[in-house]
């Protein structure tokens, strides 16, 4: 799970028009008659449905690689999900696995062997039959060390996959993937993995077209060369402009795909994104592409959706540098933070104040008590550390990558520490490359960070704090913590497992090198005539069964979202659905720093 952009994007201070526009939101506009429609039902801008069945949306920042075997960024994943389909594919509402390219499967009693049966007559968009061996070939392609796939680790539940990926064995037959015939794929796992069917819908697990790759090499993803197996094919791509997808008539469920096409514009400027939505040029702005200062105003509109997103914004403390090697100093810094003032005041309720390291939304997981604002205790802790009233405490610095929001938060925290603890804090903003180098090389006091979950399980937020993990980046090392995380990985009983993880999180919060600040939220705009896009904590949106409702006003009165795409239900029947249990799904590894 990638959490930040390799790309600090240049955000232009063009908030002016949007704010003005919002302020004047009720003013009668020339064209969008529905701006103030039917009394209280207000929508943001034009609500005239398009004449064709094409969904236009802001895809986000330009994807880097949309070869699904190599892709890793959030927008990379968005393109891959439109073009390709794995053995299973996610339900648009619940994200639970539904039969995809496989129409049924069996699991051995020990949970180690999965036998997938592919739908009869599957084929690629160029008409070539799609076989089980295509899956085997594609998965091995992800694992081949020379391909340097960033998400190869997602295949590690498969027997010997990790060894093959690390170059410890060159024998592809040792890897637990077998295709005994054209329509059967047998996968042998290294250990029972309750969430394996969630993995098989992730884009790293989709088949890629061997024939096109052989012919075009690394240019196979270009329009004209690319062959796909999902509901849509790629018709046009222009960098920094747009992707155009067309309905794939050879998709197995093409009869239930109602969109004729999708246009994904790559717009990275947040205000531009909102402007285009308001003008009715795009129908959907996914989360992360609305200016945060506009969100309090957008809340008033019916087409705005807000929900929890699986991510935590936090400050990391370098425990290798005194005085942060003293646990009481770390506690003092934590208790002196007023999260409420930051999330609700400074950020105007666009985020949730959060004092835990794991986000909300894991059924069955009970969080340990979160860190609270307690100035008295903060001063006590600092005194215990040997700096009563902040005396003798050296000037410390907060490092963050250049961004307006990061700066505002750092300034607020600087003031809180000064007022509560009487310590001097300086701010240091750096451009992305320098910032990352300082973080990785432990050349910092306190640094801004964020973490977005890969799959729906607290483990994705806790495992990275074990000694020496590449994402620890704080120098913190605690033997008891390491033991708890390893113990949880071996534990099969979900209740016990969560109890162990809860204990680990409590320890991390009490002693750890982190200062959680807020919980991420999804904030998106969807036109009322678009059906089939649902808010969820992973911000993953399958678009196969989305449709444009030109008669939406007549459907609006009752429950606007009660309408489902008829195809979605049909598609869901047909195989034993879902592994019960842990319920973890890998996410669109989001690639944005907020």
């Amino acid at each position, binding site marked *: 799970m990638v959490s930040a952009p390799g*790309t600090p994007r240049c955000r232009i201070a063009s908030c002016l028009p949007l704010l003005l526009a919002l302020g004047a939101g009720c003013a009668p506009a020339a064209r969008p008659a529905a701006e103030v429609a039917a009394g209280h039902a207000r929508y943001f801008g034009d609500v005239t449905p398009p004449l064709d069945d094409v969904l236009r949306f802001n895809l986000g920042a330009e994807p880097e690689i949309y070869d699904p075997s190599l892709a890793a960024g959030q927008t990379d994943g968005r393109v891959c999900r439109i073009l390709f389909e794995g053995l299973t594919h996610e339900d648009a509402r619940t994200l639970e696995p539904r039969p995809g390219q496989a129409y049924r499967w069996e699991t051995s009693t020990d949970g180690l062997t999965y036998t997938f049966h592919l739908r009869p007559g599957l084929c690629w968009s160029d008409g070539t039959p799609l076989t089980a061996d295509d899956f085997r070939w594609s998965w091995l392609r992800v694992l081949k060390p020379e391909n340097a796939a960033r998400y190869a680790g997602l295949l590690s539940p498969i027997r010997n996959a990790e060894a093959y990926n690390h*170059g410890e064995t060159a024998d592809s037959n040792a890897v637990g993937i077998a295709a005994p015939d054209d329509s059967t794929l047998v996968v042998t796992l290294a250990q029972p993995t309750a969430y394996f069917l969630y993995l098989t819908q992730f884009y790293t697990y989709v088949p890629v077209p061997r024939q096109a790759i052989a012919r075009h090499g690394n240019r196979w993803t270009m329009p004209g060369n690319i062959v796909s197996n999902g509901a849509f094919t790629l018709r046009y791509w222009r960098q920094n402009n747009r992707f155009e997808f067309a309905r794939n008539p050879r998709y197995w469920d093409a009869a239930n795909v109602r969109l004729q096409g999708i246009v994904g514009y790559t717009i990275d400027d947040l205000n531009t994104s909102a402007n285009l939505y308001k003008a009715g040029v795009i129908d959907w702005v996914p989360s992360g592409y609305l200016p945060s200062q506009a969100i309090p105003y957008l809340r008033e509109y019916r087409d705005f959706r807000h929900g929890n997103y699986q991510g935590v914004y936090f400050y990391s403390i370098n425990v290798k540098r005194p005085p942060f090697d003293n646990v009481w100093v770390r506690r003092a810094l934590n208790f002196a933070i007023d999260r409420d003032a930051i999330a609700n005041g400074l950020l105007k309720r666009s985020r949730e104040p959060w004092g835990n390291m794991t986000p909300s939304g894991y059924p069955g997981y009970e969080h340990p008590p979160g860190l609270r604002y307690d100035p008295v205790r903060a001063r006590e802790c600092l005194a215990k550390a040997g700096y009563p009233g902040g005396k003798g405490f050296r000037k410390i610095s907060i490092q963050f990558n250049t961004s307006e929001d990061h700066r505002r938060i750092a300034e607020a925290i600087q003031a809180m520490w000064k007022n509560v603890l009487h310590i001097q804090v300086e701010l240091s903003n750096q451009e992305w490359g320098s910032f990352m180098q300082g973080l990785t090389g432990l050349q910092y006091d306190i640094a801004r960070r964020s973490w977005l979950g890969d799959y729906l399980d607290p483990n994705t937020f806790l495992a990275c704090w074990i000694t020496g993990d590449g994402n620890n980046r704080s120098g913190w090392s605690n033997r008891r913590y390491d033991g708890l995380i390893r113990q949880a990985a071996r534990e099969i009983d979900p209740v016990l497992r969560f109890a162990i993880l809860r204990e680990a999180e409590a320890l991390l919060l009490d002693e750890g090198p982190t200062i959680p600040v807020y919980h991420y939220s999804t904030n998106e705009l969807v036109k009322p005539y678009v059906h089939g896009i649902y808010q969820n904590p992973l911000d993953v949106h399958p678009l196969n069964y989305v449709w444009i409702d030109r008669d939406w006003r007549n459907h609006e009165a009752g429950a606007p979202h009660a309408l489902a795409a008829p195809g979605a239900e049909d598609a869901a029947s047909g195989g034993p659905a879902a592994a019960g249990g842990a319920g973890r799904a890998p996410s669109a590894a989001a690639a944005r720093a907020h």
Partner: protein
Amino acid sequence: MVTFLLRRVLLMVPTLWAIATLAFFLVRGAPGGPFQSEKEIPAIARAQLMHKYGLDQPLHVQYLRFLTGVARLDFGPSYKFPSRQVREIIAEALPVSLELGGWALLLAIVVGVPIGIYAAVRQNTTGDFAAMAVALAGVSIPNFVLGPVLVLALSLTLYWLPPALWEGPQSRVLPVLTLATAYVAYIARLTRAGMLEVLRQDFIRTARAKGLSERVVVLKHASKLGILPVVSFIGPAAARVMMGSIVVESIFSVPGMGRYLVNAAFNRDYTLVLGEVLFYAGLLMTLNLLVDVAYTWLDPRVELA
């Protein structure tokens, strides 16, 4: 003339080499590298990526390989967008910036030069002050303010024009206006200053003494010399608009050169940064050469040697 051109072109080679060398070592000296992410990239994948792009070789070997590539106008693949060659990215984005910048400059000249001439002829009258006040405002309003204000007025309130995207002729209007305004103002001021100086010269007095009409004196005799400062400004300005404007391109989501240049530097996309820097350097030198040639045509006193 021919020897002049030949010498100038030959001089470009060592200059480009110096720029290439400086740019190469500067970009490599910057902290961080192209394969960084807030989520750690597995060590094996990173090593393979470094190997794939030859970044594991000694720096001097990489430098030589880079120079031979430059000599063949081949900068290699972008690190950030590995399915694309730097050459392709430039070839796709350049026409867009050329179109946007071309219209903006043309508009700036067509509007700016007459304003400047008018102001010079009416020096110290109300008309002059009004024209120069407008020009001052044009220079002073940054395009990241002007662009959004135009969007608000013309797209989101009046719904006359699309607020962004590069599709169809209407989409050109707002970005061109935004980009042109500063140039209009600047060119008007340059023209005015140039004209004022020329109008005081002896040959103008001679022309008037011959009994030529004021119209002929100003438009035929004076303006040719009066716009010389504008011509020398156009060279570098044209190079700059061709490299795109990050601000205008972001506000209007235009797929031009500007967004690449800035983001490539942030991403440490070494090949893309170097490709763009060298392209810009070459462009700037070529246009300056063209400006020098244009001088001989506009001012008979200038001789190329």
